[in-house]
């Protein structure tokens, strides 16, 4: 047998960032704890399944005993004219066959239930946890890896639970029961069987260690493949337009090859284990036969007992291959579970409060007051930074935030929407720290519309009603009308019921922004944040939105980030940001009259309108 794993693995240089290595740390023992916690709720059912399997095993293993009985007792009895023992053998076998069938059926179904419930639980945990983790996390973790965690990694646990559980219980049971039967039939034969377990145990340990490494590598490799695959399919237009196909083929081939190698390595480890364990098993069988035959020849053992012992010996090592399969799926699942445990160990950057506070009920308008109190912010990854600042936005005020790209406007908005928590200080809504609000309260309070208007699979109406799931069709249409989206929606093949996936690529960026706007309107929040929410609209579209905002924003608190100052004209107050600082603050008309940055910005914008 050649040893191919001695060849150098052509893994790319390992980056130091756990995100890049796709190797998020988890507490030691977290993998095992995760598996236990998945199975713990089904403890009773696992025990029942094991008992059923025990029964099935007993029914199956009774066969050779009946053979021994038939040869040693029934044959002489029959010769003596006593048909009882033969009938007993017949009935016994009938019973065993029926029992093994019924128990087999019960076990497969019972095991599938445990298995599927555990998987459902695990899938749900991954998904819910991922949803709780911050935007920041997802930007680094990527959708491809998350897909890999919740598909291929869960799949390897499925294999373990579906086949593995049965294999393991079956293997242990038959090892124990057959060894006992052998010891009972003849201690010498039994002793050989027990001794053979020592080298087998060594083999298993060796295999586990080596396969563990291979599977961890394989799981990382397939995640790399998935990330590349997903990225290409999601960016198919630029891929085509810039003729990236061949370059992509090459890059993909490298990732695919890495997976292929580790895949092959895993199969080879298995081959090695099979040879080793078979050698031990077959040597032991020969040894047992030698011992047994010798004893019969010497007249100290009955022939029927030897026959039974030989039949059992063959069976004793039958499960070895299946044990290999189990170890195989166990290692593969362990590698996957480790990755899942690493994901689940990630603390949400924006944790849900444990001591929720209520927002005070407001009289008057729907708006609420916003206060930034000594707020400072730095991204974990470096990049844009907000130095400490204070800001108060009274209820009902419409504030425009302007400034160059990268001035910190979006960060300000994300702090207010609690996509991030500030590094220092607090953000308060009507005097309540955002961190003390429950998610439903927070989202009734603050809603943000961003420039990237993503549409989910589903109909247009469903996409709008994300803002308020219980909204009626009339309310949805009303929101769409208010923002000027009704016209284009009714022009779609199925109106509001048009599936966006069917025409997903064909709802233009501007139209998507209108849908996103309608979604926000429907949510009816106290504070509305618009982050470049109209950038892809044409002038009439923007005007329509502005007209709508006059009514929509009435009484509401609003923070508008916009490059296009036309959107800013509705504002009561303008903040000019530069390198993370608020450098100008005032009413638009006052600022325009001055000589500051806003005045020059405004002039530049007026110039851009000249036609």
């Amino acid at each position, binding site marked *: 047998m050649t040893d191919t794993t001695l060849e150098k693995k052509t893994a790319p240089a390992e980056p130091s960032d756990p995100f890049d290595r796709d190797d998020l740390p988890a507490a030691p023992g977290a993998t095992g704890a995760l598996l236990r916690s998945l199975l713990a709720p089904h403890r009773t059912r696992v025990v029942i399944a094991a008992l059923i399997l025990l029964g099935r095993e007993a029914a199956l293993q009774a066969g050779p005993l009946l053979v021994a009985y038939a040869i040693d007792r029934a*044959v*002489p009895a029959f010769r003596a004219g006593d048909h009882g023992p033969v009938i007993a053998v017949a009935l016994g076998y009938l019973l065993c066959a029926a029992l093994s069938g019924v128990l087999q059926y019960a076990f497969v179904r019972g095991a599938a239930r445990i298995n599927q419930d555990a998987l459902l639980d695990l899938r749900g945990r991954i998904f819910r946890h991922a949803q709780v983790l911050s935007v920041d996390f997802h930007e680094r973790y990527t959708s491809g890896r998350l897909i890999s965690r919740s598909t291929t990694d869960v799949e390897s646990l499925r294999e373990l639970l579906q086949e593995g559980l049965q294999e393991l219980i079956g293997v242990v049971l038959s090892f124990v029961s057959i060894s006992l039967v052998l010891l009972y039939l003849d201690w010498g034969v039994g002793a050989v069987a027990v001794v053979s377990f020592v080298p087998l145990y060594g083999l298993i340990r060796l295999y586990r260690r080596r396969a563990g490494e291979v599977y961890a590598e394989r799981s990382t490799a397939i995640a790399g493949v998935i990330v590349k695959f*997903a990225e290409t399919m999601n960016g198919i237009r630029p891929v085509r337009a*810039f003729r990236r196909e061949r370059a992509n083929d090459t890059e*993909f081939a490298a990732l695919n090859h890495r997976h292929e190698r580790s895949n092959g390595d895993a199969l*080879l480890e298995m081959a090695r284990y099979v040879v080793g364990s078979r050698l031990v098993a077959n040597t032991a069988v020969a040894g047992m036969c030698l011992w047994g035959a010798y004893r019969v*020849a010497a007249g100290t053992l009955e022939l029927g007992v030897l026959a039974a012992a030989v039949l059992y010996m063959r069976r004793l090592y039958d499960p070895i291959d299946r044990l290999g399969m189990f170890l195989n799926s166990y290692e593969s699942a362990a590698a996957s579970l480790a990755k899942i445990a690493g994901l689940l160990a990630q603390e949400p950057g924006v944790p849900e409060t444990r001591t929720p506070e209520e927002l005070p009920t407001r009289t008057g308008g729907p708006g609420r007051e916003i206060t930034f109190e000594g707020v400072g912010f730095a991204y974990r990854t470096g990049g844009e930074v907000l130095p400490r600042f204070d800001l108060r936005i009274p209820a009902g005020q419409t504030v425009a935030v302007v400034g160059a790209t990268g001035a910190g406007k979006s960060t300000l908005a994300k702090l207010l929407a609690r*996509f991030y928590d500030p590094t220092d200080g607090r953000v308060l809504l009507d005097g309540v720290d955002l961190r003390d609000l429950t998610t439903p309260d927070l*989202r009734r309070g603050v809603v943000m519309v961003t420039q990237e208007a993503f549409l989910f*699979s589903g109909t247009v109406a469903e996409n709008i009603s994300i803002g308020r799931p219980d909204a009626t069709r009339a309310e949805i249409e009303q929101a769409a009308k208010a923002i000027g989206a009704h016209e284009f929606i009714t022009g779609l093949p199925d109106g509001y019921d048009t599936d966006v996936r069917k025409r997903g690529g064909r709802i233009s960026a501007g139209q998507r922004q209108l849908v996103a706007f309608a979604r926000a309107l429907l949510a009816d929040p106290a504070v509305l944040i618009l982050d470049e929410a109209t950038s892809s609209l044409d002038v009439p579209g923007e005007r329509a939105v502005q007209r709508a905002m006059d009514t929509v924003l009435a009484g509401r608190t609003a923070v508008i980030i916009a490059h296009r100052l036309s959107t800013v004209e509705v504002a009561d107050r303008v903040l000019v940001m530069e390198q993370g600082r608020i450098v100008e603050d005032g009413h638009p008309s006052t600022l325009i009259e001055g000589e500051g940055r806003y005045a020059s910005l405004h002039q530049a914008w007026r110039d851009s309108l000249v036609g």
Partner: protein
Amino acid sequence: MPRYDPAGKPDETCQWRTVWSDLMPENPDTPPSDRSTVRVLLRLWPYVRPVRARLFTAAVIAIVASCLSLVIPLVLKWLVDGPVANGDPGGVWLGALYLLLLGITEAVLFGFRRWLVARPLAAVEARMRADLYGRLQRLPIAFHDRWPSGQLLSRGTTDLMLVRMFLAFPLTFLLVNGVTILAGYVLLLAQDWSLGLVLLTPVIPLVIVSNLFERRYGVVARTSQDQVGDLTTLVEESVLGIRIVKGFGRHRSQAKAFHALAGHLRGTELAKARLLAAIWAVITAVPELAIGTALVLGTVQVADGNLSAGTLVAFLSTALALRWPVESIGFMLAMSKDAATATERYFEAMDAEEEPDTATGTTAHDTSEGVRFEGVTFRYPDAPEEAPPVLDGVDLHIRPGETLALVGGTGSGKTTLTALVPRLHEATTGRILLDGEDIALMEREKLRSLVSMAFEEPTLFSASVGENVLMGAERAGDPELRRALGVAQADGFVDRLPEGTATQVGEQGLSLSGGQRQRLALARAVVGRPRFLVLDDPLSALDVHTEARVEAALREVLRETTALVVAHRPSTVMLADRVALLSQGRIAAVGTHQELLRSSAEYAWLMTGEGKNR
């Protein structure tokens, strides 16, 4: 004929609906398997072909190894009836030695078989995946509009794993076990034909049951795999739309939608388990019954002296050795069926029509005629019959070296029109000529090297800033990169990135703001100094100052090239020499900005928001 058509079954991928309209159990009405498992699996042949020698050798070895295990009982029989009965210790030693030799040979053969196929099987899986990836990259954009990437991804991962597992086990072992069972029966019949016949009786019911099972299992297996694909799509969307999910505090309803889908998958899997349990029960119990019958009859025969005890031991030992091959047929059939549906799903994507190549290989005209649209109409291939075409007879001429702005209302088809130039979509009728040459007759490769694009949505790939920009040029180095970054006014922020142009961006790198990405996408479009440039609203995310600077630099670039620029606002229009107004699928007017402001009410309305009322 692809069977899974996401466009035809909107219910399938729609998780919002599953939550918000009464959690109806999904019923992806998968048609019953109309093709036999074997025929579907035969499609794998081209991939298996290169490794056929190894696979075949492995199968032969497996058969030999299995036959060896059938020989072992014969040695036992010889041992029992010969040396043991005669009390010959030397014969006992010899028998044990034979057993040991047979055992060692068997072990080595087992390992050798696995070693033979390990690398080739991994290679088959990898090759199929690479082919799928390569193919999907080249399928029409319309295909990608219809297929959620999660469905494609699940075909490229979980489905291919099922195929590999099929090649590793059922393919070999259905054959091996078949041969083993056959050889075993020959041995059994040779030892005692009447007892052998008793053991043959269960074959008929087993075949019937397996057949029944296979058909029903196939349907459920297919449903399950499609549901995995939907789940993948949902996970992917939940990340891509994470800002919306968070922004509206919808992670609970997302989780609910996920739970509903995962619950359906659980239901399907349980249905699968029910079928499996039934077949396993039958396959376990029926042979056992036959063995029991043989035992009773054999005992009677031994008692009557018609049969030697050694023969009965060997006979039963052989019969029991056959139990595993028989039992295994159940799950091997299941694995084969899983693999068959996986194969079917794989080829659904692979069978999609690639864009037909209509290139005639005519030599390029040297004339410089710019871009000409002649009676171009376009409707999406999957659009309903009664829907009006998106573009309905577009005639337009962009003179060489000219920059033409394309203006039109939201959803008027501007983006669609730009996509026709590099043939991301094909014009339904009419022609588009680049310098007098019909693009439909050009090789796409060549066409796309002539035309460079900046999309409305700037997509960056997981690569460095430099690599992302240089994607736009065949052979370009640092000077071109700097120039392009300069044009897009991106050099400033790029130099402030941690590693400058070597900084990793895209899904796996630093996330940049919309404006920054847009500028990099613009740099990518201009880096190769393309002959034709198509820009789709390239400055929408820029602030006024940056926009002004980009425009100034862009003017230099536009001077050297023929360009079509989709514009939403006057500032972008100012880049252009002339403006075309797209309205109701046609070019309604062409002229300078000033001319159109005066002559076209619609244009004036689009540019100023005043005048024409809706």
